[in-house]
């Protein structure tokens, strides 16, 4: 069963084809990755999925619902959450408040409820707060919920961003370079965490990653983009051997050298 199906997705910026007929199927409860050199169109692809960009051609389905063309708030309500390559928390809000904002699609109380604080609103808010604390604990940030998020350490900010994305109870979680800027031990920690995330809450994860070690360690299926085109797809083992991938990363000369060495 496919959670996400992208068919023929093309996105152009002026004369530049940022994405050309990209096809992707994300299976339920999988961890899949998109890799590729800088400027390959990975983040553009994420932006197309989340409704931030509207692709010129092609269709994107969540389950069997067509989602391209929808605004990003509606896509989020349908069950896709994301994190950002450069952390984009609500910097001047506390950690808990960040998570509560992430819970937005599930909160029903309106403006009048907020002013009058009727029992229903209070109950709604209390439940939301408890859920936020639970998520906070889950990502290992207990006790830091009242910190202004910009004052949190880097690793904690990354985890908080994931926590905020989880608060939406998404079917599909998109992680844009979750280990960017981390040292090896932090990276290992994050990799373990992503694995646990899938195993424990049964969520489907699609991630963009630069660090090969992370990608190869946890993904079941890897899609490689280069200059907006899908050049390969397969299991980590297959991708490691694929000459076009090596070429894209290291250049033609190096690639032939490596294939010789491998042979």
């Amino acid at each position, binding site marked *: 069963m496919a959670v996400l199906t992208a068919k023929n997705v093309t996105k152009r910026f002026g004369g530049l084809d940022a994405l050309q007929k990209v096809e992707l199927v994300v299976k339920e409860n999988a961890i899949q990755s998109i890799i590729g050199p800088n400027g390959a169109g990975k983040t553009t692809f994420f932006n197309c999925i989340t409704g931030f960009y509207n692709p010129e051609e092609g269709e994107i389905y969540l389950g069997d619902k067509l989602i391209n063309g929808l605004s990003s708030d509606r896509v989020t309500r349908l069950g896709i959450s994301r994190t950002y390559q450069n952390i984009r928390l*609500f910097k001047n809000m506390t950690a808990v*408040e960040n998570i509560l*904002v992430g819970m*937005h699609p599930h909160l029903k109380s309106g403006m009048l409820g907020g002013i009058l604080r009727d029992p229903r609103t209070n109950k709604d808010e209390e439940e939301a707060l408890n859920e936020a604390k639970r998520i906070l604990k889950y990502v290992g940030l207990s006790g830091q*919920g009242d910190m202004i998020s910009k004052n949190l350490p880097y690793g904690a900010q990354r985890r908080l961003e994931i926590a905020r994305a989880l608060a939406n109870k998404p079917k599909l979680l998109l992680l844009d370079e979750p280990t960017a800027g981390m040292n090896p031990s932090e990276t290992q920690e994050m990799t373990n965490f992503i694995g*646990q995330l899938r195993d424990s809450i049964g969520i489907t994860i699609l991630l963009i990653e630069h660090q090969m070690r992370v990608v190869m360690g946890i993904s079941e299926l890897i899609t490689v983009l280069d200059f907006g085109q899908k050049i390969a797809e397969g299991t980590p083992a297959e991708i490691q051997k694929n000459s076009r991938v090596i070429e894209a990363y290291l250049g033609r000369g190096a690639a032939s050298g490596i294939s010789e060495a491998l042979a």
Partner: protein
Amino acid sequence: MANRSNLKNYIIAGLINGGIIIFLGLVGMIETFSQRDIVSGVLNLGFLLLFVPYFIFGYSTAKKEIDRSMKSVLIAGGITGMAAGFISALLPILGNFVNLRDMFMNASPTLYTTLDFGQGIYLGGVILTLVAGIIGMIGAVFLVIPQRIRNAILQAVVWTVLVGLMRDLLTVMIARWGAISSLFKWLFATKGLSIPGAIVIVVLVGLVTYFRPEKKKANVQRTPKVLTKKQKNVQLMKYGVGIILMIFLPQILGIYFSEILDNVGIYILMGLGLNIVIGFAGLLDLGYVAFYAIGAYVVGVLTSPEMGASQITFWQALPFALIASVTAGVILGLPVLKMRGDYLAIVTLGFGEIIRLLSLSDWLRPYLGGTQGIQRIARPFIGPLELKTQGQLYYLIIAAIIIAGFIAYRLKDSHMGRSWMALREDEDVAQAMGINLVATKLTAFATGAFFAGLAGAIFAAKLSSAYPQSFNLFVSINVLCLIIVGGMGSIPGVLVGSLVLMGSPELLREFAEYRYLVYGAILVIMMLVRPEGLWPEARRKLELHESMDTEPIETETPSVPENPAG
């Protein structure tokens, strides 16, 4: 010992200081202010304006030398002061040879006499240089004395100046108190404080401050304090006293103060609204006065017999005024949904001008009165009582502020408030969190417009008239300034900002002439020294409630994320 580069720094600081003094002199502030006595025959406001910069510059240059010997601290302050004094003294000397008045209207002989102490330009210049040097040194000394004494002196001086400045108002106020008024009369002279009065205030305030138990320094990141039961009772009592005082304020203060309070109150009301739009939701709205005008004009058109549309009471007209301003808020919101930051500011600015020009136009003259405005607007009645004096309207305004404050306070910590703040922090990400930008922005505009409409309606009823001139751009700018000075997004900040920015020019008529000069200076200084505002926004503690605060907080986070709870 001060080496050469330090010496250079002191002199540069002195030059800047002297430049400021010359500027203040040439714009006429020193002369105007010197007509106001603080302590009769001893100190006037002009001298204060002259001396305070010497003091501040002396203090701040000395601060850089604090690690060195006492001697170099004093030298730093003294040299800075003397350099500043020397530069300031050049103004009368220059004025003696060149007729500066052709260019600077305020370069008058009176200004020169103030600067040279009436001792002639040369002797006066020497005296000013020395006096400035001494004041700079006093600034330096101020740095090294213990904190408690420093606070005591500072408080004593500030209170003496405040009481001296408000002499006229206070004497009128005291005269209303009947028998006990004679107890206070001797404090004041015909202008400013009497000398014994000044001494009493200095000593009293100084001693009280010195012996008051020290408070802990407030946290930079303000969070609500945790109180014991006893402290809670004390706080409750303080609130009680505050409320009683607020109820009887017009009776205690008299008409003039009540008028000021009313004006400040109307600005508080507008500030609360604009604080939602700018402080919470981050939408820079410079046309805010439009909603204020709409509120006022709707009440005017509907209640004034001149307009002949209808003659309903204030209370019947009020809902229409509110609906009209909220609708206008939504209408303004729609075209600007896609705009951000400076673009939004320009468009809203235009909107404010459109509304003002419409009210001024001949085209709408039959309906809105054109330049003549609308007179004979109905005043609110409560039962048979017509609210028309400043003291009576005060209660209406307070009631409106309480309602608006309550709404703002509740909204801030609600689902809607969080959405607004998310919008302010990062619009794209807010949308990616599932927040509907259209609805969220429009509610922010509408809520802000609601408060402004309410303020406008009360304003029209208070004056019983509405003129286009009352609704110019400066109203929007004033409200924006008071929010910035009070602290963006902070509800108590709006109160503080309004009192400081709207209250002080009313108390000091001399000040009012230089209102925007002073605003500009205040804004620049605020941005440099205290960008978060006078009373910054407090973040509520959500994860750990007050009751839990007594327990030790686990600050240690597990290095590996724990297994999920479920």
